[in-house]
């Protein structure tokens, strides 16, 4: 009985994780258009995107491993090890800077509020109720 319950719980947990919703956000005043999932993936794999104003979009990452893992899994279908190895290669050979890593979802929200060219990702649940950030893409 207990076993059954545990399995059910694990299953529910998995569903919950898989169904964890992420949103890609930018500052409310940002002129960054809504993004396709592919565009988002390109941005988070280091592909530069220049806005009409001649400014490059700056994607920001998070430290929280669990959050990152789920996000990248959703976005690129790759696990973190692959993503990190990719970035290491890009960093080493391409002398590129790695993405800025922020401590929390709140810091992400704050960062995009301040920088018009920045984008970030947070869980849907962490999305503020006010109109200070704009959702560019919803990952389900």
């Amino acid at each position, binding site marked *: 009985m207990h076993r059954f319950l545990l399995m059910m719980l694990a299953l529910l947990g998995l569903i919950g994780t898989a169904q964890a919703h992420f949103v890609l956000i930018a500052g409310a005043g940002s002129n960054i258009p809504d993004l396709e999932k*592919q565009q988002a*993936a*390109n941005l988070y*794999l*280091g*592909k*530069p995107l220049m806005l009409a104003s001649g400014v490059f979009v700056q994607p920001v990452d998070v430290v929280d491993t669990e959050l990152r893992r789920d996000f990248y899994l959703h976005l*690129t*279908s*790759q696990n973190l090890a*692959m993503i990190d190895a*990719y970035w290491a*290669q*890009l960093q080493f*050979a*391409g*002398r*590129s800077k790695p993405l800025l890593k922020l401590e929390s979802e709140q810091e992400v929200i704050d960062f995009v509020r301040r920088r018009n060219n920045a984008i970030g990702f947070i869980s849907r649940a962490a999305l503020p109720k006010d109109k200070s950030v704009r959702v560019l893409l919803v990952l389900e």
Partner: protein
Amino acid sequence: MNRSVQLTLALVVAAGTLLLSGLVSWISYVQRYDEEIRSGERIVQELVQAVRKSAEIAAFTGNNQIANDVVSSLTASELVSGAQLQGDHGLMVAQGKLDGSPVALPLFAPFNREQQVGELRAAPNYPALQASARRGAGIAALWLFALSIMTGIVVYTAVFMVFSRPLTRLSRQLHEILPGSPERLPVANEAPRNELYRLTRDINGLLNTVELVVNGERALREHITELEHRLRGMFERASVGIFLINKDGRIKTHNPAFGELSFHLHVQDNWMDILFAQPERLHGMLQRAVMQGQPQMQDLQLAEPNEGQWRHVVLSYSGEEQGEALFQGLIYDITDRKQGELVMQRQADYDHLTGIYNRRAAEMLLPQRLQQQVMRKGSLAVLMMDLDRFKHINDNWGHEAGDQVLVEIARRLGLFRAPGDMLARLGGDEFLLVVELGDRGQLAELASRIIREVGQWISIGPGKQDYVGCSIGIALFPPHGRRADELRNAADRAMYEVKRHGRNGYCFYEADETLYRVVSVEVLRAPRED
């Protein structure tokens, strides 16, 4: 075409090896060259694959740095002549030349195989590739060529050692051996028992046989030569003439003695007709020799100027040679013997005192004369004569005187002898005259004249003279007898009748004794000169 096996073998092996080596090396070179080129192209593709990930990152992010690294690492290889990386954000990095047919690799976004972000191109360095291929294929071909040549040398050496050199040596040794000599091919005991060994043994066997045959033939030839020498010596030195002629008498061969005995007339084809007095006898001998199949021999007198010489000739038919009948001939000089025979015959037939026929000759010749007359149907008369007073001469004057008288009487009787007549002294004072007369009158006349002539004076020494008388009995052929003894007996009987009647008379034989009529002849003698 006087080329040794060794040389031929060497040339064939050399030519074959060179040809095959060249062919194999060429094929190998062509294949190897293609392989090397393809291998180079594959390596370039692999190189491109190896840098694909970096190239994709560079193309995806438009990262010039990575793109440079990628292109540099490709062109660092000798096999790549040029490379180009083209990506998003106007990324375009190129190095070297990109002509020819470069390898093109499409680049995709990392983790997304559907989003093409650029292309990587790399051109193989064909000149270098070709040089490398030439080098590699050349070395391989060279090794193969060398290997083939070595194989050829090894094969040739093996064949040379095992086969051609022993064969050449065998040939040379055999060439130096004189057939029939006791020399043999050397047979090494340690030699392998192969075909060459058997060949050598067999050749020696043949040489043995040849020597036996040759020695046998040589001995036979020596024997024949010696025999021929002896026979030739006999032929050359013989005193008898030996010759071979055809049926026309033409000389085929002859020995020196024949030349001398024929006075070298044989150089002319008609030598027989010139040499012999009666050549027809010789031609007859030739015919008889063929018909009778037996040797023919005759004593033949030579013709002038050698008429005093005689030859004994033996001819025998010796068969045909090339369609021509041939005769063997022997010729001896029998002149001495023949002359001796003539003397002896003379002594036998003639009375040595008076030189007229003796009794023996008379007895032999009379039947012949009768035979001739039988054939001629002629007639003969036999006159038997006996001297009177001969005993008186012998007694008074001695035997020498008697002999003188007999010689003189024989001379006087010879005066009445016509050709064809025969006069003989039968012994003592008895004479026989055979004349070819049949007429009694003529015979009577002859007898009378004989009596008168015989009765004349006979000189029996200086100043010594005497005379004899003569009685004649006559028998006629054929009336008085047909055989010689009958006629002589008849003449004897008639003469006896004369003696009984008186002296100096003659009488014809009469079968009836009562009919005898003796005719006396008166002899008129000149007066004595003393």
